[in-house]
């Protein structure tokens, strides 16, 4: 693989386009050496992504990975991006020199629709006939040479996942711009051609090239409201209305004309290029789907898979977590021994090592969670999960497509909110955006794991599943069910609208590539560590300062002079202690003390800061327990006034419920502002999201605590 080229102006610009889930991002990664997120389901890429490689002729080639699209009719914001780029109307993106259309060899007929549209644009086109191995395994053979004759453009058979055909594609891309420009391969009926001529003329006057104008004129017959890139074309609406009228007089249905003429041509091409061997009536994927998509059994399998994931987070991560905890404790002790007593030593040991270390110990859990999620995505099971959820989604008024963004929300709400771009209807999009942060993201994992590990006993339930795993599953389910309930409220009030059916393509099951899986999990782990080493490190330092200054006056003699008492007094006297006591009345009804209150307040920047703040507070305040793990400190923490344990299982459950609901992530707020339209509208929706989630969090935590007390769980 050639290395990525140095920054600078590219000599050649290649855009990669194709139907969803045809392997565009896999090809992009193979070409550029980048590690763009790939997945075995539609809608993984929602924004243009750019990379580079050095071509065989030494030229620098810029590669643009565009979101998947079934046609050039922009039904959703992500599809609009592809259309604008290909028409040379994209913001900051010049017209590509070569367009690579990734075509799934197994589904040639459906893929050729988009191909036929792009060919008409008159740009140099190369067809990457991908997944020929899967097609051949299914008994489908595509005659690539015949396809070249039919399409009039180069066709490269390839298997992008294995890198087969990638070098050939690079060579063809290098020369494609000098080949004759492709043209429309079929003729319109005479009446249609004459009716569309004025529309084409209008588009050409608006700056469109001849090929693009012809393609757009035909496409726009089935578009009710022309997209943003056509707003500057004067007289277009009138010309279109006149064309529709002329077609109606000629007995031609304008709305279906494009599909009819294209599919008529495509069926001829497929008949001449594709041979199919006799296939078994049911493939292995069909047989697996018979079980996992069963109306009754399917949801139970889904729940069982999720339970296995969460139980393994505790069972498998425990030894690794203990090892990291011991390592961090040793590091703290070693640092404490190396430096003389003073503020810098306290900052290192009680602030940095205690704060960052308390978050880093959850690295094994993060790795296990993402290994499972990536494995399920790569096999194609997540697409089945979306199918299983569709009935439920429709019942609450959400589009079936909403499940993929919600699923992404399990990793992080930011890409989840961005993935709503695949949803065409603005109201469905907004409703999904509003509830994605309720899906428990990986930042909540340290909070859940800390509290469950400290307060939920490791008791076996059934079939190897334990109470800890079940509690974790319950938190994730609570978030998911609440997201659906809140979406139902939005869809019946502020975002009322009809429910649209979802058309979902179920990809064949694939055994994930170990390399892809390892890279993806390593990226996630690296991001977690990087975050701990940047934002959480900085916050830990600031929180240490707030917990250390101003210094309390030292007392001499008696029990009051013991280090533990002095440090507790220092914490109470510090800025953090004062802030904590100021906000304590607000959190007392939930059963929390000022230390929990201040940790919650600090975690408004990011949820896992709750854990690092607790680490810093108990690092500064518990001199006699410096080497103990944070969960041990929490278990034994007692109220200075009453002598009672601060953390009971009831308080821990209430806290977890609070974190299920609370929107404590600045990045999520920022991305909501932008994706909801920016400006006042964007800030307005972000405000609604933040406020309703905070109200839910407070209300639910209060309810859990009060009901728990009534039921006698307070001890």
């Amino acid at each position, binding site marked *: 693989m050639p290395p990525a080229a140095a920054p600078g102006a590219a000599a050649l610009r290649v855009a990669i386009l194709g139907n969803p889930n045809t392997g565009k991002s896999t090809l992009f990664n193979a070409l550029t050496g980048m590690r*763009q997120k790939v997945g075995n389901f539609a809608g993984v890429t929602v924004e243009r992504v750019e990379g580079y490689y050095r071509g065989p002729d030494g030229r620098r080639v810029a590669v643009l990975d565009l979101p998947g699209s079934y046609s050039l009719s922009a039904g959703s914001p992500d599809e609009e991006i592809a259309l604008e780029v290909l028409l040379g109307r994209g913001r900051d993106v010049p017209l590509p020199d070569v367009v690579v259309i990734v075509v799934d060899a197994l589904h040639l007929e459906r893929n050729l629709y988009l191909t036929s549209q792009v060919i008409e644009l008159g740009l140099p086109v190369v067809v990457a006939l991908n997944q020929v191995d899967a097609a051949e395994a299914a008994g489908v053979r595509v005659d690539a040479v015949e396809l070249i004759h039919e399409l009039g453009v180069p066709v490269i058979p390839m298997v992008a996942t294995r890198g087969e055909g990638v070098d050939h594609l690079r060579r063809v891309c290098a020369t494609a711009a000098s080949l004759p420009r492709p043209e429309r391969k079929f003729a319109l009926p005479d009446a249609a051609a004459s009716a569309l001529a004025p529309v084409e003329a209008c588009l050409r006057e608006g700056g469109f090239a001849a090929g693009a104008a012809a393609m757009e004129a035909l496409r726009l017959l089935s578009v009710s409201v022309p997209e943003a890139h056509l707003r500057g074309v004067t007289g277009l609406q009138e010309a279109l209305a006149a064309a529709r009228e002329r077609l109606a007089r000629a007995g031609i249905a304008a709305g279906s004309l494009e599909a009819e003429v294209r599919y008529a041509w495509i069926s001829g091409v497929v008949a001449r290029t594709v041979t199919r061997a006799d296939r078994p009536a049911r493939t292995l994927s069909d047989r697996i789907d018979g079980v996992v998509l069963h109306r009754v059994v399917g949801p139970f399998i889904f729940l069982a898979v999720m339970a296995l994931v969460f139980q393994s987070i505790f069972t498998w991560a425990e030894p690794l977590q203990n090892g990291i905890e011991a390592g961090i404790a040793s590091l703290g002790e070693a640092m404490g021994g190396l430096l003389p007593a*003073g503020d810098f030593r306290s900052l290192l040991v009680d602030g940095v090592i205690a704060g960052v270390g308390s978050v880093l110990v959850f690295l094994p859990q993060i790795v296990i969670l993402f290994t499972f999620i990536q494995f399920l995505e790569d096999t194609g099971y997540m697409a089945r999960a979306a199918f299983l959820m569709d009935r439920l989604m429709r019942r609450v008024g959400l589009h079936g497509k909403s499940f993929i963004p919600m699923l992404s929300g399990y990793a992080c709400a930011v890409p989840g909110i961005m993935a709503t771009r695949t949803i065409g209807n603005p109201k469905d999009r907004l409703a999904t955006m509003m509830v994605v942060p309720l899906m428990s993201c990986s930042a909540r994992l340290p909070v859940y794991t800390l509290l469950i590990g400290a307060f939920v006993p490791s008791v076996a339930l059934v079939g190897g599943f334990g109470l800890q795993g079940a509690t974790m599953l319950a938190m994730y389910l609570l978030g998911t069910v609440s997201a659906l309930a809140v979406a139902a409220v939005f869809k019946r009030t502020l975002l009322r609208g009809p429910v649209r059916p979802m058309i979902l393509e179920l990809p064949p099951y694939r055994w994930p590539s170990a390399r892809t899986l390892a890279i993806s999990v390593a990226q996630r782990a690296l991001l977690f560590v990087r975050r701990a080493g940047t934002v959480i490190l900085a916050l830990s330092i600031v929180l*240490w300062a707030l917990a250390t200054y101003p210094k309390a006056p030292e007392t001499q003699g008696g029990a009051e002079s013991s280090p533990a008492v002095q440090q507790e007094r220092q914490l109470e006297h510090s800025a953090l202690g004062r802030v904590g006591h100021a906000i304590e009345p607000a959190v007392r009804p939930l059963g929390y003390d000022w230390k929990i209150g201040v940790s919650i307040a600090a975690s408004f920047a*990011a949820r896992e800061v709750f854990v690092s703040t607790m680490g810093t507070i108990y690092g500064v305040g518990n001199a006699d327990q410096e080497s103990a793990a944070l969960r041990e400190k929490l278990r034994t923490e007692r109220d200075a006034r009453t002598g009672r344990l601060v953390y009971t299982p009831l308080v821990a459950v209430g806290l977890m419920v609070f974190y299920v609901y609370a929107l404590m992530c600045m990045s999520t707020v920022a991305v909501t502002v932008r994706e909801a339209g920016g400006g006042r509208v964007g800030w307005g929706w972000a405000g609604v999201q933040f406020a309703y989630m905070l109200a839910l969090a407070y209300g639910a935590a209060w309810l859990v605590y009060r009901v728990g007390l009534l039921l006698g769980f307070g001890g």
Partner: protein
Amino acid sequence: MSGALLQTLIALALVLGAAAYLGVRVWRTVAAARRGRGAAGCATGCGCAPAAPRTDSARSARSARSGREKTTV
């Protein structure tokens, strides 16, 4: 200068640096929210952005600053 005072000064310098870093991150987050949809949200520090290309750190850093690239799910 005593050892204790020196430690206090070092600690305060680190605290100021950390506070400045957090201020920049907050400012960038708000700025990203105000940019158009073409901008990347993950440059704001959620830590969810895909990794940069292996051999092109300069371009990656520039992209992160301009917020133009690198965000997919």
